[in-house]
């Protein structure tokens, strides 16, 4: 396609560097403890970089810009929520969780409520959330490799899947900490430097308005290659040149499109004259730039219920972060509760700096790569913008840089998720704490989402990640918050709440992921379930705990001391 010729070498370089740094870490990883938790010797600065590096996934690097390009102001809540999740984590979870000594969520559940069955239930949800989160990473990898080299979709997914699985299986977490910290700075550079040049180009080009009344139009004569069958909606009659399948007929020459829906087959090439308004992929409303820039216009894909969709998204992202398996594990590598707080503060700063940039790509994408609104593949905006807007050797080099950053995003997030899922599989399901068991579990944990990613329907990367947040917010958020602050929680109450919130939210998620987005009120609810399922999970957990008051752990007082007493009191023995 229109990718940079330097992109592939850049991607290979990032993958090799990741493996090399991982291998360097292996020399230090000797015991199982080293393998899983870096022996708790990671300093807050490294740790915060590593957390941010691990957290900034394909959804942040590619997906946010893609959504902003499509939906405008309403989806700015995605990056704000992804960041604010760490504030919620700091306020309610970070220090007590570290002081609990729990490494994973199942550990916490068992330490707090003393139930093995609850532990297993938690392990199940960790694996579910981890896989749900891994699929869009692998999908993003396939998209990236396809966009920059023209390789088939499956190849990128397989490459990332194999590199990450090999790295995790051989290096464990100690090496991952170095890798992740490196990845944060790589990703920040890869998104910030091209953004700076893009803004320069935009300003020198006369600062074309991003908020005019008209919908986006092609700036120059543009040829658009269609990779998957697409239905588009034309809002103003137009003439273009087409080669391939259009509206069910083979064509080779000028085609006149009337207002209304039209179909284009995969493999077709459409050429539009400069100034033609961009036809939009069918599921997209052709937003005028003016309403694109206004809040509550698109609702992030739910234009009829923008308020509900916005608040549900806020709830899912603000409260979901604390329940993500790969996030929690990192807090254990802090030396103590105070260290956990310091780390979280630095993470908030690092994420805040990073998230300034994807929005710039999303907005400029409407000017320089409007054809993505036709194909619907706006996740590719970050990858294509440097080449489209800047051009020449500079544009190609910057294009290679963003491609490398995108690959860093897939590698780091997938590694973190894989360590967590494999850790839970090897300790809770296989129940063998050996290094060998961890390696086997890592292989299993990597293959399942890879198979899913190869089947996945065309969904935006960020939307699927948002769904994983919704499940985490509906399950582990109430468990952590109530477990840490409320003495009255019981194992039965926690289990009932987990099941209520988890089954409903993951059911909604699966319907959306497998069946595609739906219309109307019910569709909005299925796609953004958190506003209903989070309060429900809290309510069920509280009511069921009250009904089983006799099951409150007898040593609850001692547990609360363990969770909340500062280290300086000097009673840190377990």
């Amino acid at each position, binding site marked *: 396609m229109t990718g940079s010729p330097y992109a592939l070498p850049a991607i290979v370089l990032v993958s090799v560097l990741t493996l090399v740094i991982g291998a360097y870490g292996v020399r230090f990883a000797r015991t199982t403890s080293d393998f899983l938790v870096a022996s708790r010797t990671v300093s807050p600065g490294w740790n915060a970089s590593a957390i941010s590096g691990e957290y900034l996934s394909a959804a942040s690097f590619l997906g946010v810009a893609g959504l902003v390009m499509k939906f405008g*102001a309403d989806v*700015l*809540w995605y990056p*704000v929520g992804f*960041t*604010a999740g*760490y*504030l*919620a984590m*700091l*306020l*309610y979870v970070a*220090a007590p969780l570290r002081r609990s000594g729990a490494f994973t969520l199942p550990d916490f559940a068992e330490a707090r409520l003393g139930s093995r069955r609850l532990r297993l239930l938690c392990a199940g949800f960790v694996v579910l959330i981890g896989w749900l989160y891994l699929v869009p990473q692998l999908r993003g990898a396939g998209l990236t490799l396809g966009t920059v080299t023209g390789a088939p979709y499956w190849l990128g997914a397989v490459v990332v899947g194999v590199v990450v699985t090999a790295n995790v299986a051989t290096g464990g977490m100690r090496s991952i900490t170095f890798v992740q910290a490196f990845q944060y700075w790589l990703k920040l550079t890869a998104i910030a430097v091209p953004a700076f040049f893009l803004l320069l180009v935009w300003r020198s080009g006369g600062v074309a308005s991003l*908020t005019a009344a008209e919908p986006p139009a092609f700036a120059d004569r543009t040829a658009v290659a269609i990779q998957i069958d697409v239905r588009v909606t034309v809002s103003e009659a137009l003439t273009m040149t087409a080669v391939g399948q259009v509206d069910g007929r083979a064509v080779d020459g000028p085609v006149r499109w009337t207002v209304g829906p039209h179909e284009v087959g995969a493999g077709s090439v459409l050429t539009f004259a400069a100034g033609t308004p961009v036809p939009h992929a069918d599921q997209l409303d052709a937003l005028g730039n003016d309403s694109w*820039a*206004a*809040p*509550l216009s698109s609702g992030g894909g739910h234009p009829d219920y923008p*308020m509900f969709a*916005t*608040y549900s998204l*806020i709830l899912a992202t603000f409260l979901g972060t604390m329940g993500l398996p790969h996030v929690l594990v990192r807090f254990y590598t802090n030396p103590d509760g*105070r260290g956990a*707080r*310091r780390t*979280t*503060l630095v993470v*908030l*700063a690092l*994420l*805040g*700096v990073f*998230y*300034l940039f994807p*929005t710039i790509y999303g907005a400029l994408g409407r000017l320089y790569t409007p054809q993505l609104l036709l194909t619907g593949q706006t996740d590719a905006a970050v990858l294509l913008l440097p080449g489209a807007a800047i051009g020449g050797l500079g544009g190609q080099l910057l294009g290679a840089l963003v491609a490398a950053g995108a690959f860093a995003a897939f590698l780091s997030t997938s590694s973190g998720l894989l360590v967590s899922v494999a850790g839970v599989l090897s300790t809770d399901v296989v129940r063998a704490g050996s290094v060998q068991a961890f390696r086997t579990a890592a292989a299993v944990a990597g293959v399942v989402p890879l198979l899913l990613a190869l089947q996945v329907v065309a969904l935006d990367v960020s939307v699927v990640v948002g769904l994983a947040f919704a499940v985490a917010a509906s399950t582990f958020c109430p468990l952590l*918050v*109530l477990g840490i*602050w*409320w*003495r*009255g929680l019981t194992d039965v109450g926690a289990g009932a709440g987990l099941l209520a919130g988890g089954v409903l939210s993951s059911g909604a998620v699966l319907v959306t992921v497998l069946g595609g987005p739906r219309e109307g009120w019910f569709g909005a609810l299925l796609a953004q379930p958190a506003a209903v399922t989070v309060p429900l999970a*809290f309510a069920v957990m*509280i009511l069921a705990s*009250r009904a089983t*008051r006799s099951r*409150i752990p007898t040593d*609850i*007082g*001692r547990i*609360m*001391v363990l969770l*909340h*007493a*500062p280290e*300086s*009191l*000097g*009673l840190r023995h377990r």
Partner: protein
Amino acid sequence: MTGTPEVPLRVRIDLAARRRVRVDRPLREIEEQTLVGEVLVQGLIRAQLAVALRLSAVVALLLGGLPLLFALVPALARVEVLGLRLPWLLLGVLAYPFLFAVAWVHIRQVERNEQDLTDFVDGSA
């Protein structure tokens, strides 16, 4: 979910009123994980939860109120500041330093609470 209403409380020691509380040799008692130790920490938990809830309310109001505000006063969404429309400036840029500032205030307050408890225990020992 606030506080701990269901388990019968034995003694409640409020951190704010701690100077008036007479506890003999609390450090040793905490180490022995006695009732008094647990009650001391329970006061700390209430104080820390109050900080967290207060700051959550600030975020819910100032940040969480924005969609509602833009719905009630749509004209605000078209105001331009520094060349950026207000929603983009608030959500795209200013939200991040705001979240950081709230986190900073939180750490200051909860660590002061912890220090107060430690000082109290050390002072009475």
